[in-house]
């Protein structure tokens, strides 16, 4: 791989140990995947934040990097393992909170914006068409690649950090035109009505297409929330972190020759598959990926003058929550007895053993709560989830 004079100096350690280590990671990845050079990135989203996933060794690694490492491009952060202000109310232990705070202090020391959200594109880190970025968090990677037309591979924790500390990423994969071209035409012969239909479509496509990039035809309109749901789901269930939808996503392509047809029956089967036989749900959660302001508004309307009869968690970024406070939505929601879980989500929080069955409108949430937390799942729309939470 070609390196500029400056990049060679970075690799030799002239700019400190964190930059050296970062360059070693990026150059190795570049060589493995046949990149010709490094390219500058406009922003970074770092994954690998929860203490539940990092452990003490993760803390050690990050501390080592933070000794002389500083981010050189705007960098935002994935959800942590707890709500940074409200962790006690959500049942997080003191020990866990202490470790989680250490991790966030380390990121802050390196200049990372402590956003703690899987939806950086809703809180100011929103790349444009053709922008090269290096993002972790598979749902955000897929949203930015597909809906925003930005260019990123699915980065892991260490490689996204390496890009933040150097401002570079190896040029391979979805940074290159040839790999962004759709190879399968997907004809949708079903009316997709809501976020769970889009989540179910993601599951169907992820499982059917594996890593192949699709061009989807037959969707007339799709809201931000529905595209967020599809982005999270398709990559969770094994798909590539990039899709195109004719008339909706920004990149234009000719129809690929190979085609598949998706009917209502396929969507319904996927929805059925995400619903376990359960008698009682003990946690209802929405906001995977984190809620938009629109979703918060809708929840406040649904909860107006009502009381919840179950744990209802609303996962959202701190920034959107603050806007919701100003608009008065938060008050309505909290008066009903629902809880905000800012900065976190049930996937990265230490919840194993605390609940038996959860209800959610997220297909991604279904996958991880089944496999990581061992919970049974009820998969339904936002309206139905809220209805379930208030039902006596």
């Amino acid at each position, binding site marked *: 791989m070609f390196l500029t004079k400056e990049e060679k100096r970075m690799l030799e350690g002239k700019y400190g140990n964190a930059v050296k*280590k970062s360059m*070693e*990671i990026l150059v*190795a*990845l570049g*060589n*493995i995947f046949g990149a010709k050079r490094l390219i500058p990135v406009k922003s970074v989203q770092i*994954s*690998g934040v929860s203490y539940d*996933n*990092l*452990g*003490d*060794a*993760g803390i*050690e*690694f990050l501390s080592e990097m933070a000794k002389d490492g500083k981010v050189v491009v705007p960098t935002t952060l994935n959800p942590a393992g707890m709500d940074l202000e409200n962790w006690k109310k959500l049942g997080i232990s003191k020990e866990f909170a202490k470790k989680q705070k250490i991790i966030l202090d380390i990121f802050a020391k390196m200049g990372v914006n402590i956003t703690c959200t899987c939806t950086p594109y809703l809180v100011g880190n929103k790349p444009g068409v053709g922008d090269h970025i290096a993002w*972790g968090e598979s749902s955000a990677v897929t949203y930015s690649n597909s809906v925003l037309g930005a260019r990123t591979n*699915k*980065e*892991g*924790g*260490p*490689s996204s950090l390496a890009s933040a500390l150097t401002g570079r990423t190896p040029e391979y994969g979805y940074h290159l035109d040839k790999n962004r071209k759709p190879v399968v035409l997907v004809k949708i012969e079903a009316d997709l009505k809501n976020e769970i239909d889009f989540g179910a479509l993601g599951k169907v496509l992820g499982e059917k297409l594996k890593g192949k990039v699709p061009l989807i035809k037959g969707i007339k309109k799709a809201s931000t929330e529905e595209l967020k749901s599809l982005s999270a789901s398709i990559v969770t269930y094994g798909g590539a972190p990039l899709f195109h939808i004719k008339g909706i996503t920004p990149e234009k392509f000719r129809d690929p020759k190979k085609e598949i047809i998706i009917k209502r029956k396929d969507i319904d089967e996927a929805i059925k598959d995400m619903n376990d036989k359960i008698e009682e749900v003990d946690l209802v959660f929405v906001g995977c990926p984190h809620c938009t302001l629109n979703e918060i508004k809708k929840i406040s309307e649904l909860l107006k003058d009502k009381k919840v009869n179950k744990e209802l968690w609303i996962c959202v970024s701190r920034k959107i929550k603050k806007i919701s406070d100003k608009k008065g939505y938060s008050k309505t929601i909290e008066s009903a007895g629902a809880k905000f879980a800012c900065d976190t989500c049930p996937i990265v929080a230490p919840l194993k053993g605390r609940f038996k069955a959860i209800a959610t409108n997220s297909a991604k949430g279904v996958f991880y709560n089944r496999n990581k937390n061992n919970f049974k799942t009820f998969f339904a729309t936002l309206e139905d989830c809220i209805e379930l939470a208030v039902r006596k």
Partner: protein
Amino acid sequence: MITRGRIIFKGNVKGEALVSEEEISFYGGIDAETGIITEKGHPLEGKSVKGKILVFPKGKGSTVGSYTMYRLKKNGVAPLGIINRECETVVAVGAIISEIPMVDKLDKDPIKNIKNGQIVEIKGNEVIF
């Protein structure tokens, strides 16, 4: 026999081989405290990677696996060296941040040619056994 490959993380180490025909997931598949392979039904389930030249086709699973390798190293139970048929991102990044000498893409297939328990040396891009 001497065979050459591609350096993922450069180093010289010599030790006993632990060979797996199956892929390995470090996150969830190996105990970070003990170095023991815990993945249910894995051919090496119950074996420890500590101090071994770990030979396997490639890594699989979550990107958190890189951090698990780092945990193994810090706990003193990491493999001495790693040989892959062809590596992927998680294990490559794990080897780099944990400073575990690693090579892949050897001239001769390591899984077929290296026997369990055999003494193997990684010397830069060379593997001697």
